């Protein structure tokens, strides 16, 4: 964001020399912060993954890739992140669409509904889900007392509960980018399509949906990447089968104090995330371009 701005400023005042000046200089603290707080530690983690313990070489990576539980949990992590992204899109898309077509005032209220949970702590929300879902929770106690059921429903300690809890936390990251794109789609375009003979559904599917793709891409990537880092929610709402890789990383850091292995695990997660993102964004962007061309 800030880099192009800085370049533009510099280009406009080429005679005065400095690459970054004026408003561009506002980006400097962030760049410094990112370098110190992100790039340097990331580099140190990569170094540690091959030097702790001394002479370990790629040993930590071998340990990880030959460990049954680690591989399974890595698979879980991506599986849960994908399901979560799909769930958020399924719920978030209609919601954002509704926000885009209702009057501004109503959209504002709908926005607050999305944001209110966003402002409360992840832990609080996860524990709230636990209180609602567990065997002695609100739903099961109510149904048991009403004699609708005789045994508690299995609402917690399974994939369902994890997806439910994570999706609720991640939903704003889907709805906000979707809404910001949808709100800028000219309603005249769908009307024009209708004029040209498209039914309401065809107009929506062939005009509105393709135009909303940038929002879909942004929302999905945000939710997916954030979901990969979850571990408290799956630990509380899931069973051991829903364990995610960050939990294992945290255990190695805090409990086993085995930072070499923890670093290797973090690097693996990061690299795999980059790979998935690179593949996915390429794929989605191509579709995006085709969609835009096809409709214009």
């Amino acid at each position, binding site marked *: 964001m800030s880099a192009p701005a800085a370049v533009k400023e510099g280009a406009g005042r080429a005679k005065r020399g400095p690459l970054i000046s004026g408003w561009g200089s506002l980006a400097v603290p962030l760049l410094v912060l990112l370098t110190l707080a992100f790039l340097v530690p990331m580099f140190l983690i990569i170094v540690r993954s091959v030097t702790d313990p001394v002479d370990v070489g790629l040993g930590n990576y071998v340990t990880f890739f030959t460990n049954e*539980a680690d591989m399974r949990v890595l698979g879980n992590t991506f599986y849960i992140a994908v399901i979560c992204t799909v769930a958020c899109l399924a719920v978030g898309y209609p919601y954002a669409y509704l926000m885009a077509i209702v009057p501004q005032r109503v959209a504002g209220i709908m926005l607050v509904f999305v944001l209110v949970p966003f402002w409360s702590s992840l832990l609080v929300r996860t524990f709230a889900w636990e209180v609602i879902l567990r065997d002695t929770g609100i739903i099961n106690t109510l149904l048991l007392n009403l004699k609708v059921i005789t045994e508690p429903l299995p609402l917690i300690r399974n994939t369902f509960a994890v997806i439910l809890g994570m999706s609720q936390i991640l939903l704003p990251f889907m709805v906000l980018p979707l809404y910001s794109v949808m709100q800028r789609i000219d309603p005249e375009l769908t009307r024009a399509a209708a004029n040209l003979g498209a039914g309401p559904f065809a107009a929506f599917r062939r005009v509105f949906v393709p135009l909303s793709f940038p929002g879909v891409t942004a929302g999905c990537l945000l939710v997916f990447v954030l979901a990969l880092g979850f571990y408290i929610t799956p630990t509380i709402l899931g069973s051991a089968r829903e364990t995610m890789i960050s939990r294992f990383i945290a255990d190695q850091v805090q409990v*086993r104090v085995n930072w070499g292995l923890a670093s290797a695990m973090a690097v693996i997660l990061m690299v795999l995330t980059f790979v998935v993102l690179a593949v996915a964004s390429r794929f989605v962007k191509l579709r995006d371009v085709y969609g835009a061309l096809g409709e214009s």
Partner: protein
Amino acid sequence: MQIRSRSIAALFVVSAISGACGSSATPAPTAAPTAAPTAAVTAAPTDAATAAPSAAYTDAAFCTKPPSAAGQSLTVVSYGGAYQAAQDKAWFQPYAAATGITITQSQDSANATIKSQVESGQVSWDLVDVGNDFGLDANANLLEPIDYSLVPKDQILPGFAATYRVAAITYGIVMAYRSDKFAGAVPQSWADFFDTTKFPGKRGLYDYSTGGVLEIALLADGVAPKDLYPLDVPRALKKLDTIKDSIVWWSSGAKSQEQIGAGEVTMSMMWNGRAWSAKHVDSKPVEIQWNQQLMVADYWVVPKGTPNKAAAMQMLGWMSCANNNGAVSKYITYGPPNKFAAVDPTNKPDLAVSNINDTTVTVNDQYLVTNASQLDELYNAWKTK
């Protein structure tokens, strides 16, 4: 424009820094008197120890009237909550009053923090309460050896004083059960814990391979306490598999207490202090079965390179004295590692050390620490399947 943008940035920096300082600075209880004759006082105990190695703790005065440490300060770190509050009342406050030392407390003990402090050379913790998985020879590079001229090793229960650590409190990993769920039947052993037909309901278990879960599975399967180590992990996991769908894992003491209190589980492996709190603090129908309890301890360690090593060792020696060691039991049901220490008469029946019998197992920390990665590998493979 430039000036304005700079001043905004400067404001950010300033507020960030002051914010950070505000949150990290722990208020010191008293300002240290700067004029106190520090040097002379600091030297005293160490010199005495060097001159006559056995003098310090055998000298009754050291335990009742410890040498003044006025002007010095110590940062003592434990786990917060009711536990640290008890330690504060039993040890920290009285010791500060007796010696004039300034004790700053932190409540976020973590093995990882000790490691990062020592590795970065910025050691600000002097005396740290850690769990039983830390402080053995595996961590020698992070810790100072305990000064056993000040700490009465021969009075500590066997196995609870090692080169780099000495026990702070002893506790039991016990079977806690809901007395309202089994129509009066009382579970007698870990075998009953695994019998979900006779004792229906879910089971709370501590979610770490080295937290005692493998031990109780083997005890339930009929392994004698003396044959427990080395652990037969496949056998333990096979036993655990019989109740896998009934397990509700917990990973903090507070969580275990809440689970059994809410009735989400009808039985749980718990730290005895937490089970006691479920009954006496939360007023829930929770009882303890002491048979086959696993005896464990929390330990004091001194991070390597602390500038206050001498003061830390002196305080450690004082807390380990028979007359001081049991004081915590007045405020929480955790017992003293010093076998001659007096305990609080009211809480005495609820201490792990008061319930030692021939079924009691002492957890073999050395075995667990040495084999942690193999135990983790097998246990995690089973658990996540």
